[in-house]
């Protein structure tokens, strides 16, 4: 049963990831991307990582997708260089890298015993994560707030610059 769920979810995930690359309209890309995000959230649910799935839904499916749609509406599309057919040269360069990555991943899956290394998750995801965040990982947690501060200052600088001309 677990395997069946996993196969269905991951097929949807791969299909929507491919869809996001292959369709032309930017809004359709976002819809496919949303499908990808939802299927990843579903696979987290299947693995009983509730908090991660919830965060995936709240942050990606809501905040980031909405943000992207807002950005898409502000872009002057008539000025943007559109897709001009198949990039042959890039494909030739990308193919060996792609084949190498796939081959290496398959080798890893076959030759390693990662499933033996799996740890049982704590029953109460949220409180376990909260406790760790405020005790052991207090230093990186505090530092992460600086990232937001820096990004906010940067956004204000460039926003102001545009407003002033």
């Amino acid at each position, binding site marked *: 049963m677990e395997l069946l769920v996993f196969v269905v979810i991951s097929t949807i995930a791969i299909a929507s990831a491919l869809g996001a690359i292959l369709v032309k309209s930017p809004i359709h890309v976002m819809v496919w991307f949303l499908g990808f995000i939802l299927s990843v959230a579903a696979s987290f649910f299947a693995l009983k990582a509730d908090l991660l799935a919830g965060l995936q839904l709240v942050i990606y499916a809501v905040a980031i997708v909405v943000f992207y749609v807002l950005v898409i509406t502000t872009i002057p599309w008539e000025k943007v260089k559109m897709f001009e057919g198949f990039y042959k040269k890039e494909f030739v360069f990308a193919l060996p890298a792609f084949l190498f990555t796939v081959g290496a991943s398959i080798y890893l899956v076959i030759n390693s015993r990662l499933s033996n*290394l799996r740890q049982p998750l704590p029953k109460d995801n949220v409180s376990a994560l*909260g406790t760790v965040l405020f005790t052991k990982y207090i230093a990186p947690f505090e*530092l992460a707030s600086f990232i937001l501060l*820096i990004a906010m200052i*940067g956004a204000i600088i460039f926003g102001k610059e545009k407003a002033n001309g």
Partner: protein
Amino acid sequence: MDIRLLLGSTNLYEFKYLLPEITVFFGAFVLFLLDIVMKNSETKKRVFLWISILFLALSVLSFSFKSAFFKDVFSGTYTIDTLGMFSKIFEIVLTLMVLPFLHTYMNKKNTFYYEVYYITFLSLLGMMTLSSSYNLVVIYVSLEMVSISFYIMTALFRGSFISKEGAYKYLIIGGISIIIALYGAAFMYAASKSLDIRAIMSSYNDANAAYLIVGMILFLLAFAIKIGIIPFHFWLPDAYTAAPTPITGFMASAGKLAFFIPLLRLVPYVNQHLYSSWMISVSILAAATMIVGNALALVQSDLKRLLAYSSIAHSGYILSVLSSNSSMGLKAAIYFVFVYSVMGLGAFLVLSVLEQAEEWDNQLPKIGGLYRNTGFLSISFAVFIFALLGIPPTVGFVGKALVFLGLAIKNIYWLGFVLILATAISTGYYVRIVVLMFMKDVEFRFKPHYDILENVSISLLVFLTFVLGMFPFVLWNGISNISEFLFKIANLR
């Protein structure tokens, strides 16, 4: 859960070890408030400069100097040790030297941003935390902090399209490198159930070997993008050319130093099982970087771009000696990364003064006859160029000799020969700059303006370039202790 229970599990007295970091953060905070309170004026510009200098000086003074010191704080996520202390002091001092140039440059180019001061402070804070942790989460968070500040600082050139374009390229490729680092971290965590590099590397066994090696190599590749290793260097020349020149110097010196520290910390923990995969990947990357970086620098006509490619080549020199994975190799790498930050910063700072001239467009022929315009500037530029080339008695020579020694100890001679070949290629462009400067007719008339602070910084950099080259043991004794201490701790595990 009871809040007192949570607070009790964090030892609040451990914050006293973070005094330099807290001082830097407090400086950023004060500047941030001043920016809101004060009205824009000439006085405000000078106040910002002096307050930044004051806080950086206070931060240097707040270090407690101890040798062979090691302490894990915050449940092992943050490490206070001698390597961290050395690199933090270097980063702060390099920032101190950049700030006066940044002030003049922004004034002259009519692109003054008060925000740049506190972004510099926050990126310095990121560098300091990056230099002092073995924990993957802290490394990731600090890496993001430094990188995001760099993306913003690259774009801070008012009305310049190239600056925005360079920043955008940096943003995209920097984002990819962060993702690769996270992917590697996920493999390492899956293999070892730990987030601490020391525990991860010593958890080697047959069952998790493949995942550990993949994680290690992906982690290495992510840092290779950050420090500009070929073939992941595409962002570097564009971003370095696009950024305001003092900021380029800041990224190439303090930034590069900070990005190298986690790799340096990894070296003592690469044990004999992991050694061959580490050696092969590092040495191939390093050989490609040294040869291709120097060959590409040879064909550049833009002086800033040329120095950017020379910075790539120097990353290759430093990375090459990490492949030897010995105490001697680590010493050479630490020495070289410190001295490169001195000479690289010097070269970029001289360029930033030259950019004051109207006629200056960074093209190589424009430097012709600079000696007749400004003696001090051209002589100090020649000193930095000779140091980058590696002529005795400057630091560059000692650095390259030590790298060669580090490679020879482990019998990796082929990489040593690649190093010599790369240096031979680099002679072409470095010597051309010096010949143009001293033996050609004047291209344009130019009287540079620099005040006392800028004079002091350039003189200090020239002084360091000579003194650390003629008396390398000033730095060497400290570095030697650091490296042996790191290996001793690694062997205890």
